[in-house]
């Protein structure tokens, strides 16, 4: 098998004095959709932020397409081809919808055109001149995902895109993620919503206390339920 697109080994990370990741190992192959499952505080968001260079000190290894990024600054990591959609969505209040959409610079050829993004999220086109934070929660989530599709980044880190959204919107996000997979994007997804994760992902990593504690292929998920409930504490 070819080298994985992203290979994280023994990743540790700190916020100031607080040690949040204790040696995370994950790998993602080109074109896969992978979820990180786990309880609140298990280290899922910290893993995404550490990959993106947004935590404090990091050690271990983050290899992306063969390049070591564990010591790189976040703008260098972005330019290597990784794009990040934060949990709080990070829509800018002082920018309108179009400006928010156009904000991330193009880092490689082959990103989606604005027209394609509007086809994927028709609501955004209607609200093009609105202030970014005046959108509904679902629209803000679409904007947060939409703006990183333009840039040519091939690996998308999505932090809980389904959080706090109405079921019909969650469905739409699910359709979007499957569409992105079809278009060749690779996705690393943080999720609390088990059922949602099941409808989009190829494999799942389960995290607890800042390490990966289990790894399940999507087709084994049903059979592994009992074991997973222990970690997820539901």
């Amino acid at each position: 098998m070819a080298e994985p697109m992203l290979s994280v080994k023994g990743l540790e990370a700190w916020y100031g004095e607080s040690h949040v990741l204790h040696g995370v190992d994950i790998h993602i192959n080109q074109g896969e959709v992978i979820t990180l499952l786990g309880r609140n505080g298990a280290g899922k968001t910290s893993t995404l932020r550490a990959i993106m260079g947004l935590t404090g000190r990091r050690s271990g290894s983050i290899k992306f397409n063969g390049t070591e990024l564990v010591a790189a600054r976040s703008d260098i990591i972005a330019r290597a081809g990784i794009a990040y959609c934060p949990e709080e969505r990070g829509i800018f209040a002082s920018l309108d919808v179009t400006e928010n959409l156009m904000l991330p610079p193009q880092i490689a050829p082959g990103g989606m055109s604005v027209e394609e993004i509007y086809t994927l999220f028709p609501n955004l086109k209607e609200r093009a001149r609105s202030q970014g934070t005046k959108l509904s929660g679902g629209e803000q989530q679409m904007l947060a995902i939409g703006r990183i599709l333009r840039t040519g980044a091939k690996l998308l880190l999505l932090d809980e895109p389904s959080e706090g959204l109405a079921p019909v919107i969650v469905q739409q996000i699910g359709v979007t993620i499957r569409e992105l997979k079809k278009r060749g994007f690779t996705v690393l997804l943080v999720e609390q919503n088990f059922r949602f994760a099941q409808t989009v992902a190829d494999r799942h990593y389960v995290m607890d206390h800042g390490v990966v504690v289990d790894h399940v292929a999507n087709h084994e998920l049903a059979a592994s339920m009992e074991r997973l409930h222990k970690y997820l504490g539901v």
Partner: protein
Amino acid sequence: MDFFGIPAPLLFGQLLLGLINGAFYALLSLGLAVIFGMLNVINFTHGAQFMMGAFAAWMLLNFFGIGYWGALLLAPIIVGITGIILERLMIAKLYKLDHLYGLLLTFGIGLIIEGLFRNEFGSSGMPYRIPAELQGAWDLGFMFMPVYRGWVVVVAFFACLATWLVIEKTKIGSYLRAATENPALVQAFGINVPRMMTLTYGAGVALAAFAGVLAAPIYSVNPQMGSNLIIIVFAVVVIGGMGSILGSVLTGFGLGVIEGLTKVFYPEASSTVIFVVMAIVLLARPAGLFGRA
């Protein structure tokens, strides 16, 4: 022709003087607002950098024979570059600390720069001639308007307008606004935010130096010219709202006019009126007239 018993030439003369002072308040508070928005540093070196702009114009003329028009372009670039060096070598080291440290550092550097200039040039001030093209006065019927003063008001207005357009209507401006809200995320989109902060500081300083060149023919070029002005400018910034671009421009011009009118109607209060307004605004709207709470 009288207004409320005040002769028109006196009234309009003071109004014009107010507008000119307002133009400097606006240019300086605009630079402070841009710097504060991006760097979260209250740049207390701003007054010294304004003064450096005037001195740069004077030196360009007396050492290199470069006149007013060349200085208007070169002095902001030269002083802006000193700002960039200052940001890289010192201010950038303080971003992770409390804002107070940036304030203390820039305050100290301002004092040092002023002291150096006073040692070298004394404090009496040196004249700088109005360029030939802008000498003389227009007869407006009710008063004489010195051409240079009209020029300053118009140029300052367009410089403010241009800055506002760059920030509100361009791609670079959208990076700037976004980075003001959430610099970490903007950097995670692949934008070199530290370099942007350096250039923003340089641009804010260049704006102060530009104001300094404009001021050189009006006030004499002396080492204290910045510190006299900057205290009022900080009051303007507080009234307009920290970091608000439009707020600093409107408040700058507006307060200059209020100050001018006070000189006409109640001269005793003219040096304090801005601080009275500041106290009232702080009580009623602590975030300033245009600030986001």
